């Protein structure tokens, strides 16, 4: 029997206001840990680019940039989809879906960092491709991608700020025993569909410019969609991990229930299949056509060492394994199992980004997977985790002023009363 949600309004406010005090003790420790990770990553990166490993460091930087930025935008897309569909089930996890969006300003700064590594990243700077210079030139690339990122970040931040600040105001204004009357946020409803469209365009642009152009002779028309769907899949896995960890850390067992994990698990399964399908749709067409300039991209990754083994690992870890596990109904309701699966998917998708980028740049015998990659990834992870932690501290943990959240509580309250009667 799933636990029913029977919370009085003042309890909801209490939980929201005191959620951060529950982790008060570990907050400072976490802050220091994440900050140290950032410093460590930055130090490793700076050391590497000043030494002989510059190309490898920039490559790791790029892999992490596309991975974490995609995750952050994907999470905001989840919020936008919630707004568009007026979904009730996901309201308790709304703040956790918003949290990775706090990383976006940092992502914009990190993007400008790529400018200094352009010589190492873009092969077409040294060997321009005839007929493609109009699109593949440094200035135009940074201007268009920078503008796209800035636009999408701005849209995300407006969406997040609208919802989070309304909740904070509601929490401050509320007195025990009174439920906050939330208005349906019009601006959020209007912005969400446009966010969805701009998301698809900007993430396609990033995929084409920062990943596809590394092999400037290769083209795949589906690549942009493949990247932004994969990013959404990554974001869902990240959200699963965040929810699972926060559940006990913030004491939200009365709000985030097995039902929420079940639904999130179903979505994860769906987008696991979509990502796999987009991969296969590209792969099949390239396989059939067998054009040298298209096929070489795939052949390099699935037939040549050292990438061959990595390609199989990616297929299993980010697609086959989660697919089989998520078919099971009961496991989707177990937070701990879902956190583990989420972490596995995140690792799989990170390796997948590496597999998309590194073979175009790395010419060594061994896989470029060692201390440099680990430390730089730790730095990016630290930055993301720090942003999430600070965001969750700044705003109430539950969407207090969201009318759909209150409706959801009301509905489950009535349901439990009827069952009890």
């Amino acid at each position, binding site marked *: *029997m799933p636990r029913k949600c029977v919370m009085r309004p003042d309890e909801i406010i209490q939980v929201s206001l005191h959620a951060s005090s529950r982790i008060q003790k570990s907050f400072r420790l976490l802050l220091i840990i994440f900050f140290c990770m950032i410093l460590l990553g930055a130090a490793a990166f700076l050391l590497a680019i000043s030494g002989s490993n510059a190309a490898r460091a920039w490559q790791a930087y790029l892999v992490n940039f596309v991975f974490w930025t995609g995750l952050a935008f994907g999470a905001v897309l989840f919020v936008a989809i919630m707004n568009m569909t007026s979904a009730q089930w996901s309201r308790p996890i709304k703040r956790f879906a918003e949290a990775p969006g706090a990383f976006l300003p940092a992502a914009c700064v990190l993007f400008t960092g790529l400018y200094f590594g352009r010589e190492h990243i873009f092969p077409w700077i040294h060997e321009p491709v005839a007929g493609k210079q109009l699109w593949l030139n440094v200035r135009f690339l940074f201007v268009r991608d920078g503008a796209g990122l800035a636009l999408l970040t701005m849209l995300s931040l407006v969406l997040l700020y609208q919802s989070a600040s309304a909740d904070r105001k509601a929490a401050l204004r509320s007195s025990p025993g009174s439920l906050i009357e939330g208005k349906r946020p019009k601006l959020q409803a209007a912005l969400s569909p446009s966010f969805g469209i701009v998301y698809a365009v900007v993430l396609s642009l990033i995929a084409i410019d920062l990943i596809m152009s590394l092999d400037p002779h290769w083209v795949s028309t589906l690549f942009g969609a493949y990247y932004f769907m994969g990013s959404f899949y990554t974001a869902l896995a990240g959200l699963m991990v965040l929810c699972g960890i926060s559940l006990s850390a913030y004491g939200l067992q009365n709000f985030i229930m097995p039902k929420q994990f079940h639904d999130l698990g179903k979505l994860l399964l769906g987008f696991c299949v979509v990502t796999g399908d987009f991969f*296969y749709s590209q*792969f*099949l067409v390239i*396989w*059939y056509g*067998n054009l040298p300039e298209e096929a070489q991209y795939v052949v390099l990754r699935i037939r040549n060492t050292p990438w061959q083994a990595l390609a199989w690992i990616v297929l299993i870890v980010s697609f086959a394994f989660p697919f089989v596990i998520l078919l099971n109904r009961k496991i989707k309701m177990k937070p701990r199992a879902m956190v583990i699966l989420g972490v596995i998917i995140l690792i799989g998708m990170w390796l997948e980004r590496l597999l998309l980028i590194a073979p175009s740049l790395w010419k060594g015998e061994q896989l470029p997977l060692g201390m440099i990659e680990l430390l730089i990834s730790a730095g990016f992870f630290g930055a993301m985790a720090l942003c999430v932690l600070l965001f969750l501290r700044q705003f109430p943990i539950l969407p207090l002023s969201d009318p759909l959240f209150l409706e959801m509580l009301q509905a489950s309250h009535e349901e439990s009363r*009827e*069952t009890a*009667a």
Partner: protein
Amino acid sequence: MINNSGLIGIFARRNCLQAALKALRKNRVDIQAVYSPVPLHEVEEALSAKPSSVRYFTLTGALLGIVSGIFLSAYTSLQWNFIVGGKPVVSYVPMVIVAFEFCILLAIVFNLLGMLVNSQLPRFSIPVHYDTRFTQDRFGILVQCAESERATVTTILKAAGAEEVRHAT
């Protein structure tokens, strides 16, 4: 088969139905069937019936579909024996699509068959105890009990708020 030598209780309200189910289970009365015009998830949970065997039909269909998809594409390719673009005649890349489609097709067909077998459909005669109001605005519980227990069970059903309790035969 539903044994229709029992009692049927008819209810107008959902909470009465639930109370009756609770009381019946407490007294270990054998509940044969619950009729409802609308899906009731909490009743499904309360009855804690074991998962239906339809899923094994579906799984069988899915696996059979994969095998037959692979077989069909390999067999037809071998019939023509064309080498296209230097690729092997029987290659697994395009096979995946056919196997996938067959997997879904046969899984659905088997699922439907499993559902029919499990619900003993099609049924050409309506059981005697069945009340047509069960598809309109009434809930019903069919219980199986010995001659001697009839009075007790009737009291339980009535106490829970049954509008009507009658013999199922």
